[in-house]
């Protein structure tokens, strides 16, 4: 068996199950074990993976949701198997059936990016990279062919595509030409590296003296990206030699959990003052200074901008149906964003 095939398959099974059951934990599996058996039956046979595309599986086995539960109570029919075989298994484009019809045709393209960065205690950016995905949500009649092009494709360092993307147009002109599966799917993922700037800064200061430690963390915006940054959180783990912590913030809420994890949720930076967290940490007896410094994990979300600078150029259909609505959004989130102290 090729390396990674087992692990990838297990990750895929987990993804499909959590997609169907909206979450993945023991209780959910126990409550829906019939669906789980059915899915496993279709996904793997005698040890070899068969069909794992979620859109195909949805046609064969309907997911349990409120609507179908209500329907089944009303009509007394709780079979969730499709009566006919999904048309997709017979078509040449295995991820799309041939007889889809919508009254309103629409296609939305989302650029979802995650920024990973490491910043050391002097505020210098050690490493910064962005992992992004282009997600497409399409509801279009028939079997459409889409082409998507970027204004600056050369900043992307490494790309990988959904199987539906044709390779030649990308190789020659950096154009994505594809027949999309119906609904939401991940068209391609890319990596952009060597970024120089980060949107927010977090300045931690820890001083220790004779058994107690003072800690001071400041958060602010640097290199304003133009759009509102929200859902800002700062989390850090107190080292085990700290007995207790007394922290207050002038904006947002601070919580210290029983496993010594501190979480400060700021949400948005107010215009009039810079949010700051300060407090004291009590060290265990005998310890003069703090030797182990925690790392701060920063979370944020910026809607409306892709920090890598990637821009979409155009999105066309080969045959434009009567009413087509196109939408485009961008979102940047923090990935593993770490500030050392």
């Amino acid at each position, binding site marked *: 068996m090729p390396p990674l095939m087992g692990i990838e398959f297990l990750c895929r099974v987990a993804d499909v199950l959590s997609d169907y059951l909206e979450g993945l934990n023991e209780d959910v599996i*126990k*409550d829906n074990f019939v669906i789980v058996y059915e899915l496993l039956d279709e996904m793997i046979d005698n040890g070899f993976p068969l069909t794992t595309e979620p859109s195909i599986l949805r046609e064969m086995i309907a997911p349990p949701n409120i609507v179908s539960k209500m329907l089944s109570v009303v009509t007394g029919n709780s079979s969730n198997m499709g009566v006919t075989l999904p048309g997709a298994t017979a078509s040449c484009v295995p991820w799309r059936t041939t007889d889809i019809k919508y009254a309103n045709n629409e296609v939305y393209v989302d650029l979802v990016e995650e920024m990973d960065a490491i910043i050391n205690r002097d505020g210098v950016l050690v*490493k910064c990279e962005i992992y992004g995905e282009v997600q497409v949500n399409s509801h279009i009649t028939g079997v459409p062919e889409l082409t998507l092009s970027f204004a600056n494709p050369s900043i992307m360092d490494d790309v990988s595509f959904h199987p539906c993307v044709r390779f030649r147009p990308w190789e020659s002109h950096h154009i994505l030409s594809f027949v999309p599966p119906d609904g939401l799917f991940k068209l391609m993922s890319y990596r952009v590296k060597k970024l120089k700037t980060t949107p927010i800064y977090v300045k931690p200061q820890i001083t220790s003296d004779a058994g107690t430690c003072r800690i001071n963390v400041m958060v602010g915006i640097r290199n304003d990206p133009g759009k509102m940054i929200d859902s800002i959180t700062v989390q850090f783990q107190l080292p085990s030699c700290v007995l207790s912590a007394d922290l207050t913030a002038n904006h947002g809420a601070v919580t210290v959990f029983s496993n010594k994890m501190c979480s400060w949720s700021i949400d948005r930076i107010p215009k009039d003052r810079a949010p700051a967290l300060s407090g004291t940490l009590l060290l265990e007896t005998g310890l003069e200074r703090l030797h182990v410094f925690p790392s701060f994990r920063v979370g944020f979300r910026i809607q409306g901008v892709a920090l890598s600078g990637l821009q979409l150029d155009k999105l066309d259909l080969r045959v434009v149906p009567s009413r087509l609505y196109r939408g485009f959004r961008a979102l940047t989130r923090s990935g593993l964003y770490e500030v050392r102290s």
Partner: protein
Amino acid sequence: MAPPAQTNRSPSPSQPSGKSEVTDLKSQLRQLAGSRLPGVDDSKRELFKKVISYMTIGIDVSSVFGEMVMCSATSDIVLKKMCYLYVGNYAKVNPDLALLTINFLQRDCKDEDPMIRGLALRSLGSLNVANLVEYLVGPLNAGLKDNNSYVRIVAVIGVLKLYHISVTTCIDADFPAVLKHLLLNDQDTQVVANCLLALQEIWNGEASTSGDAMKEREALLSKPFIYYLLNRIKEFSEWAQCLVLDLVVKYVPADSNEIFDIMNLLEDRLQHANGAVVLATAKVFLHLTLSMTDVHQQVYERIKAPLLTLVSSGSPEQSYAVLSHLHLLVMRAPYVFSADYKHFYCQYNEPSYVKKLKLEMLTAVANESSTYEIVTELCEYAANVDIPIARESIRAVGKIALQQYDVNAIVDRLLQFLEMEKDYVTAEALVLVKDLLRKYPQWSHDCIAVVGNISSQNVQEPKAKAALIWMLGEYSQDMSDAPYILESLTENWDEEHSAEVRLHLLTAVMKCFFKRPPETQKALGAALAAGLADFHQDVHDRALFYYRLLQHNVTVAERVVNPPKQAVSVFADTQSSESQRPHF
């Protein structure tokens, strides 16, 4: 996060409690068995769910077998699925009762709905009972010729299952020939992939006994067949692609043109979203170009980017698997990756097995230009909460120091470690400073100045203590307190548990004596006396040896114990032979 509060849930059908439930079920099923009331399907479904849930948890429900079979006469697919699942599980134990279900299964194999046909075939195949196999052959034959591809897919895997139950039936019914025909001619790629899988397994099993099977297996690796598969590779599903790529690895191409053709064809697989496909393609490339060294180097460059992306995206398990492969490549060709060292920086929340591997790779890719930054990064990890990782990172700094020629900054860093008050940091750093001095004796002044300040009480670990003592002995002319420290250590001889430390102490005291005789004389006497009385064989022998040498001739003793030494140029254990073996 605080754990969610425990909710009070009413017992669902998946939380059964006892054996009496089984007999209850039996009677309830029997009641429903012949009934044709409209609501009966729902109640049957609930009961079946209970039976399956008991089965899953491990409670033995085989006694309801008869009733289950009676109830399975239904047109509801979910009920059928549950019934066949149950039958498949218990058929081995109750083969005669399994015979009862064969009727239903055979009837379902001829049903109009292809999903039901497929389901029935799959369940027939999972029955796994030897004397029922003759009932399997007919439906399988029909299934292989079915005009719906879903049924064909299931039939092919069914042939493989039959092979595992009963080899002779499978071969006698001539299934391999039918499969081969499908393999070469079927339109649906999933059928082709399943045929490939089934035939590979069957022929591998037969190859030891039958010459035909061996020939067929060789034929799989023939050029026309491989090219046929490669030309259609994009149409296969991602898992089937992995299978095809696995086969291609075993193929031996005739000349370099073929090699380039194959590589051009597979180039775009490196950009597939599925990591298993990317890795399998990388394996093919590396294997094909093993004999062509310059193309091999280019292949490293080409697969670098996708592999590095895979390291950082995906679950920790995937990261670890890809990192292990990268580790191999980095060991073979470190200069290819020397610009990408930033990818191997550790995030603080990664699991420790991933961090450990990344540390090894950082030491391997360090070269003159990146040493400073890498060492800075490693020093950050030394302050990490995770103690084994902190130790590993200090050792990594030491390894880099031993590999490079320009060690200014590194020595400063190591000496800074010695001043940190954490005992494990000091311990690791001492061991490294000792090795550093063996290679670069010119740094002795700076190092000794710092080491001399370390109180020997703080150092408890045997390796570190031994390192400290070695330095005391070797550089006793520079360290003013050396004889007195050694003397106090000798006084604690009996409390010293490690034989290694005692051995080093003996030698160090001797060396110190040769350089500063008047101060060390008393310590020497005490050490030799204690050594001779020691119960450990090595310590005793060494003490005796030194005593007799000194009695014989002091200058000879000095030549033996403390000759002028050369700096060590290469340490033997930095060269690992494992990375030189061919691995592809």
